[in-house]
């Protein structure tokens, strides 16, 4: 891999209601606006050799609309974080407060994940992409794995409350930046703090 273009998925039906969804078994389609965003993403980025997405419908649909007919690869390690008891609720219904109060290794109540567990997954997923033979790869994922990657590529460790990632906006990451980001994220999982 020489160049990775990362993007958050386009607008989905649940985005309209600000509902959290970390369970890929729930089928959540893109909105009409989201489908237009996805096509515009492919047009602006241009040809790629491989399109990676997660196990969620909204990333697959974005990927297939952006680069129709291109080879795809599912990378479930880059799935959305699991929200446990806050699955299906709004950000402000409790998850935001929990994120602010909890530590990076605290498991989200109700079967969800800690931030460290999620970042560990992301490291594995990004290593998979780094090891691919294709030169130019597109990845459609979720806000957290994209934001953590962009922070780490700039040498910054994960933080608790992440800046919003706009839907279907491309971010280019070179091989060296990806290697650096993986090193930063892996280092943080060994010694996490916020």
């Amino acid at each position, binding site marked *: 891999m020489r160049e990775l273009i990362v993007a958050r998925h386009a607008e989905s039906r649940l985005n309209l209601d600000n509902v959290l969804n970390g369970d890929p*078994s729930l*089928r959540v389609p893109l909105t009409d606006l989201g489908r237009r965003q996805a096509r515009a993403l492919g047009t602006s980025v241009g040809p790629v050799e491989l399109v990676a997405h997660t196990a969620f419908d909204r990333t*697959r649909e974005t990927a*297939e609309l952006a680069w129709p007919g291109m080879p795809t690869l*599912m990378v479930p390690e880059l799935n959305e974080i699991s929200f*446990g*008891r806050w*699955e299906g609720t709004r950000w402000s219904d409790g998850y935001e407060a929990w994120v602010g109060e909890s530590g990076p290794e605290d498991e989200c*109540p109700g079967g969800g994940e800690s931030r460290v567990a999620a970042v560990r997954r992301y490291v594995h997923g990004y290593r998979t992409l780094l090891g691919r033979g294709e030169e130019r790869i597109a990845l459609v994922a979720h806000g957290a794995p994209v934001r953590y990657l962009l922070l780490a590529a700039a040498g910054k460790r994960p933080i608790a409350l992440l800046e919003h990632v706009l839907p279907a906006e491309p971010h280019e990451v070179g091989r060296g930046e990806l290697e650096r980001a993986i090193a930063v994220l892996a280092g943080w999982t060994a010694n996490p703090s916020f």
Partner: protein
Amino acid sequence: MTQVIDPTRDQILAFCSEEPVERVFLEDVARRGQGRFTGVEKDGRLVALCHTGANVVPSGRGCGAFADEAVRARARMLIGEQGAVSDLWEAVRRNLPAPREDRPRQPVYTISEAPEPGESGLRPAQLADLDLLVPACAHAHEVELGINPLARDADGFRWRTRTQIEEGRSWLWAEGGVILFKAEASAWTPEAVQLQQVWTDPVARGTGNGSRGLRDLIRFLLVRTPRVCLFVRADNDAAIKLYDSVGMQHVLDYRSVLL
């Protein structure tokens, strides 16, 4: 004292380990970190658990305590051990629409000793098999759930079939473009594998192909896990006869309430 709690992952896995066949799906989704779990704790121990995702899956004693969760979930189906689903359904039936179908007494079969070899051509499915498998999986899905998934969401169903292949959870035996046997794993834990959509093309039925393919699949899986299990519609006499014939044991019943 009994209370409804948000269980930890360790609590969930400990609860599932008490009944590894009945709770194989719950353990699988807990290990994958998918969906939302609610528990009932009594004297410091989890006595009931409910997973809310595309379906609502209760287990244990006192599952009526999950009524609020089940109503909020607007799920397509309540499914799980018969007693647990019955407790929950009694608690929520006045607050949910009339069921599309209610299927009590769905036998759950399990096997832990390898049957005789089937000497079939069973193998893990590959992406090149996708076009052959999609209509077969759709047919099996429609037989089991009464809904044609290709009419509802063809792209999504094709992708899910592809995902099963990529995850190594799909097997088939095909000759000349005809599927003589196929099945997928719907849940996989260190203690058990649950099969779904066991299917033979109608033109190839009645000649023992299903038995040969299933025996080979069970033998393949029992090298990797202590138990293979599945559940079946109570009115599917042919399937029940097949599972009995390969040595599977009927160990409990599920109930499905389709909404």
